């Protein structure tokens, strides 16, 4: 019996590692393979304290956990800015260095390891046999599992999955992705440290072999079997893996040595076969945390081909999977002839126009009343503190002056001035490579300008990161929509809701009631946004199953949920066919009617002339002309720039 309890104890300890690794690897998508290294830090710290300073189990556990957490944090900082292959390498190097350091320091016992720990005695008497140790392991494993589970299935975990799917897009809806990643590295590191402490106390030795590369392989195998990001799977996977060798030994009656070899071979085969069959792991992550069976049903539904949309929603016949991605060429040519027919008037061609001149110009041409952001309309704005400040600046929501940006030797933007009028739709048009998307990147802080400034309602935001810009009320969509494909439609939108208490770890663990309430509110808010764009009946489907047109609508819903009222839409109409175009345009028109400030980058000039109050024509990183659509299309020179000489 002690034999199997021993297996169970070891399995539970490995499960602690596997579960935290599953959060990091699966949910957050960080390719860190340092669990054994961090476990080693925890284990050796506890072992050292016990052997040399006769510290009791509980303080040693806390110290080991904290030490691993701090190192996990330190590991998170460089990992943040590195590409995925470098992160694998960084964590690999870390794990190797840690073990090598233990081997090199004589006081830590070198390659033999550190002996002579004081047996753990948290309940009074020392725990010496596997069965007496089992309650302690069970308690620690349960605590670690509960911690990781809470982390993973909360709004915090939702942000992690957003980061995994698309870090930039997550930052663009106002999430401080850097802080989330760092915190995840630190807390999962702490859990791994706790696992290391348990391993050291259980085996009464801290040795390099306990934290070697082979151990990492076991942990990765457990995560892979369980499915990346599926914590219960990782937990069960670890127990199963640990049982393979003992089963071979007892059932097939092979020697312990041979059993351990076969156990390792089976690990390896599992890794190879599972990756081949299902690269995201054996068991799916679970589409929805709230109810497993419903999620599975939906998953099956999704796989079996989704039904057409219910009647009464905007994009009626959007056929999924086959959603035609129409080339925009057709419509562009149509507009080209338009442009030639219209005989309009030149507004401005001054390329070195100053901002103040521009300001006067625009104020004169459109008599406007300063728009106040408190629109009492059905735009589902959630509480958004940013709206209350900086309202007094008047006509312009956003002003950028003298923006300069070069990439290598190429000047993408050279002295650009742009002002977005409150409550109006401004369109940026111009040939490919004019720098239109770069303007969005500069305005939202995704790239930093080499010179110039950006002001949002009187506040300078030139050097703010994207998530802060989004929180101040300016958010953008991306040309390539950047849907979080492996999350549901509702989760995509809920992620954007600002100020969720469940994203703060202190609230997450100490104020559960508030989390539940906030979560309901976030979902209601998300559903309102989805209703606004007409996707409410697909809220609980996987976003990856949406057609491209619907994904564009989802991107807008995501934008609305941030509470932003300055919306930068990067090619909202590109890549979708005419049938799916209309709902997108209607949504934008309703947003305009509700008083949002909108800036469009768009190639389809039909769309621009229908939506835009004001058009800026860009070429080679500058605004070369501006005015109404008629004024712009009336200039043969511009048409030539845009469409090539006739």
């Amino acid at each position: 019996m002690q034999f199997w309890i021993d297996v169970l104890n070891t399995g539970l300890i490995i499960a602690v590692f596997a579960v935290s690794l599953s959060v990091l690897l699966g949910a957050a998508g960080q390719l860190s393979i340092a669990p054994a290294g961090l476990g080693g830090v925890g284990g050796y710290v506890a072992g050292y304290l016990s052997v040399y300073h006769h510290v009791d189990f509980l303080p040693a556990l806390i110290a080991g956990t904290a030490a691993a957490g701090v190192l996990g944090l330190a590991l998170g900082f460089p990992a943040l800015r590195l590409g995925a292959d470098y992160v694998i390498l960084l964590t690999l190097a870390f794990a190797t260095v840690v073990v090598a350091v233990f081997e090199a320091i004589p006081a830590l016992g070198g390659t033999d390891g550190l002996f002579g720990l004081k047996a753990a005695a948290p309940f009074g008497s020392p725990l010496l046999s596997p069965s007496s140790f089992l309650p302690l392991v069970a308690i620690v494993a349960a605590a670690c599992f509960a911690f990781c589970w809470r982390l993973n299935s909360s709004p915090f975990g939702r942000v992690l999955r957003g980061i995994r799917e698309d870090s930039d897009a997550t930052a663009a809806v106002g999430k401080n992705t850097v802080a989330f990643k760092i915190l995840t590295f630190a807390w999962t590191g702490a859990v791994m440290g706790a696992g290391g402490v348990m391993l050291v106390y259980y085996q009464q030795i801290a040795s390099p072999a306990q934290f070697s590369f082979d151990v990492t392989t076991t942990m990765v195998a457990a995560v892979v079997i369980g499915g990346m990001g599926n914590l219960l799977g990782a937990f069960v996977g670890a127990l199963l893996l640990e049982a393979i060798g003992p089963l071979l030994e007892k059932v097939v009656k092979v020697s312990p040595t041979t059993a351990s070899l076969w156990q390792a071979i089976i690990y390896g085969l599992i890794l190879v076969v599972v990756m081949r069959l299902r690269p995201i792991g054996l068991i799916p992550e679970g589409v929805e945390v709230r109810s497993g069976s419903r999620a599975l049903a939906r998953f099956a539904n999704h796989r079996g081909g989704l039904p057409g949309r219910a009647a009464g929603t905007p994009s009626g016949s959007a056929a999924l999977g086959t959603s035609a991605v129409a080339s925009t060429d057709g419509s562009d040519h149509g507009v080209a002839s338009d442009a030639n027919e219209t005989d309009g008037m030149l507004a401005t061609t001054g390329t070195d126009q100053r901002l103040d001149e521009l300001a006067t110009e625009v104020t004169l041409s459109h008599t406007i009343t300063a728009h106040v952001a408190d629109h009492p309309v059905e735009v589902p704005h959630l509480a958004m503190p940013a709206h209350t400040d900086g309202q007094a600046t008047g006509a312009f929501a956003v002003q950028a002056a003298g923006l300069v940006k070069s990439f290598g030797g190429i000047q993408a933007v050279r002295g650009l001035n742009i002002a977005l009028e409150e409550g109006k739709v401004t369109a940026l048009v111009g040939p490919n490579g004019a720098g239109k998307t770069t303007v969005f990147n500069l305005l939202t802080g995704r790239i930093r300008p080499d010179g110039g400034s950006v002001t949002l309602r009187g506040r300078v935001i030139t050097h703010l990161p994207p998530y802060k810009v989004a929180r101040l009320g300016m958010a953008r969509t991306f040309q390539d929509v950047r849907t979080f494909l492996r999350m549901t439609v509702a989760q995509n939108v809920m992620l954007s809701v600002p100020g969720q208490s469940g994203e703060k770890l202190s609230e997450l663990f100490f104020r559960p009631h508030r989390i539940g309430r906030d979560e309901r509110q976030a979902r209601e808010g998300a559903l309102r946004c989805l209703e606004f764009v007409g996707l409410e009946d697909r809220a609980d489907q996987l976003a990856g199953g949406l057609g491209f047109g619907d994904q564009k609508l989802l991107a807008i819903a995501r934008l609305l949920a941030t509470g932003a009222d300055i919306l930068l839409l990067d090619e909202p109409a590109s890549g979708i066919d005419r049938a799916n175009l209309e709902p997108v345009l209607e949504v934008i028109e309703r947003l305009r009617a509700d008083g949002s400030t909108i800036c469009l980058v768009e190639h389809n000039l039909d769309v621009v002339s229908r939506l835009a109050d004001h058009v800026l024509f860009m070429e080679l990183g500058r605004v070369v002309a501006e005015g109404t659509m008629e004024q712009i299309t009336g200039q043969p020179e511009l048409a030539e720039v845009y469409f090539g000489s006739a």
Partner: protein
Amino acid sequence: MTFSELIQAIVNGIVDGSLWGILAIGFGLILGVSGRFHFAYATTFVVAIYVTAHLHTGGMPLAAAIVLGVVAAVLLGVLIEGYLYRPLVAAAGATALLAVFVTSLGVVVIGENVIRLVWGSAPLTLPTGYMVTRVSLGGGVGVTTLDLVIAGVGVVVTAALWSFIRHAQYGRAIRAVQENPDMATAVGVQPERVYLFVFAVGSALSGIAAILLTQQTAGAPDAGVEPTFTALVAVFLAGLRSSPIRFMLAGVFIGLLQNVVTIWINGLWSPVVTFGLLFVYLAFLPYLEAHPLRLRLPRSRAHALGQT
């Protein structure tokens, strides 16, 4: 530490470094061209020495056994690419990097333990086939004839691959795929075939280095892991898409560092220094990329910002 000890450490460092350099060239070719994080490089490494030892103890002449050992490594490498990685990358899409790494981890574990089952876990030695004598370089400093062979193979491998990639027609195809697989496809190069080719060459180099290293010290079922780690360090220090010369120099640099650390502190600290170096380098890489030094060793990879 006397002066002659230091010189001896430098000489040893160059010899060891030649081995790391050969391994780095092979690993760098695979990673730089195909983008596969081929950790199972450690497996082609051990397969070469075990096949060679098996054939030789079975009575085959050493030279033939070595050739077949290297051929076995090549076959294994090509099979891994063709039957494991390629379909995996096609299926895994965005998570391909992790999938390839996890698969190669699995291959390493399988390879190591199958070898233990078949040939046991005892250390393995390989004869050189010639008398290993010590050649004095004066002042108490010397090298063995095996050391000279190792350094010589290092020079030949570096020169051969450098001139092949630079001048041969197929070498140009490799560079084209390295720069941009899609463009290479457009001009008629098949990336899949180039990948198989670099896996073949890289695996051959892992086998050659493995046999030399085993002749110098000894082999074991897990003997491939640490050299692969070291090769990784060299590859990343040199920069992923470097020329063979640069990989070799990075390898020699690590060899020197390890040997100097060994006589300066002790041998136990040498892996700490090697991987610590990589760790520090990676930790500061983002900073280095933002503020390039003029004398910077690596060539940074182009980080394409998603702007159009």
